[in-house]
């Protein structure tokens, strides 16, 4: 006997099996083939100074006027269009400052980010970009700390696993200077 509910049941289960197999297949192909690497990705530090303030550029109140914020300007040249293939929904690109201190052996501070939604805007060439987020250490002091900048990207697919990568950071090493004399703050 084939009544309506049995037919509907069969059709629905076939449809969902096909749909999920397709999604699984797409995810598997992208997982194994990957998204490649960008043809160029380069960050360069143009200017770095340290100021004392209660607020960084994102206006979170650190509560102490003596908190030390890095004020950085960097150049960014990257061609990320190779990361766009048939299963790329967007790229999340960020510039990360990385350093080691005595108390904290790994520190990563994202200072800038950008969402790239299509291949046409995946060529980035920016000059003297200021940091978008507060460049402040856990201790809120910089003490001539050495750090390096790198470009990180995270590929968000339409369906499947995320894949991350980053540029070589050894070319963008810098040292935080001592606090500049403050006036009018």
């Amino acid at each position, binding site marked *: 006997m084939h009544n309506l*509910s049995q037919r509907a049941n069969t059709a629905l289960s076939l449809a969902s099996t096909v749909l999920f197999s397709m*999604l699984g297949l797409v*995810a598997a192909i992208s997982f194994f083939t990957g998204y490649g690497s960008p043809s160029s990705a380069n960050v360069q530090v143009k200017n770095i100074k340290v100021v004392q303030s209660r607020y960084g550029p*994102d*206006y*979170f109140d650190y509560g102490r006027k003596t908190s030390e914020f890095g004020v950085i300007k960097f150049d960014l040249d990257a061609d990320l269009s190779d990361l766009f293939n048939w299963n790329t*929904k*967007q790229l*999340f690109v*960020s510039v*990360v400052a990385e350093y080691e201190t*005595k*108390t*904290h*052996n*790994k*520190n*990563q*501070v*994202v200072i800038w*980010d950008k*969402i790239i*939604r299509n291949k046409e805007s995946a060529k980035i060439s920016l000059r003297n970009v200021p940091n978008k*987020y507060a460049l402040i*250490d*856990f201790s809120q002091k910089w003490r001539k700390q050495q750090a390096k900048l790198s470009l*990180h990207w*995270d590929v*968000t*697919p*339409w*369906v*499947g*696993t*995320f894949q*991350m990568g980053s540029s070589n950071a050894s070319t963008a090493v810098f040292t935080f200077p001592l606090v500049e004399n403050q006036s009018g703050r």
Partner: protein
Amino acid sequence: MLEELRRLNGRQLALQVLNIIMVLSSAMMIWKGVALATNSESPVVVVLSGSMEPAFFRGDLLFLHNPVHEPIKAGDICVFQIAQRDIPIVHRVIKVHDEAKTGKQYLLTKGDNNNIDDRGLYNPRQMWINKEHIIGKARGHVPYVGIVTILMNDYPQLKYVILGVLGFFVLVNRE
């Protein structure tokens, strides 16, 4: 349909009920098994807010895992739960400070679609979240599939309608 239900004798009815219990318990076992394998109490979550648009929209399904020996890195998309809050949040990590002595991680998160970081969402005066707040790192996603959950959350009656209809069909459906 009710006719059919009446035609079932006691033995058949018991079989049907056992079948339902079997289905429910295997679903439960699979869920808990995956939770063990991924070390995440909730290995699949549905995105409930638009704070990560355009990466994820409401109703997207995220697959998580939470490996013990792999620390969180900047850029990871994490699902975390603040103490004494019900609803977990899916956001991206923008600051990481690993304490050398203890290995404790101090993390700050932010939604891609939000203008500011999450300190306003944490408890008052809470500056960081730690590994114990993290339910898992998002490893992959499927769009839209979780929309049923969203609908059931928005219209709670729908949940009972769907459960009722499904239960009825399972009960009367023989062979």
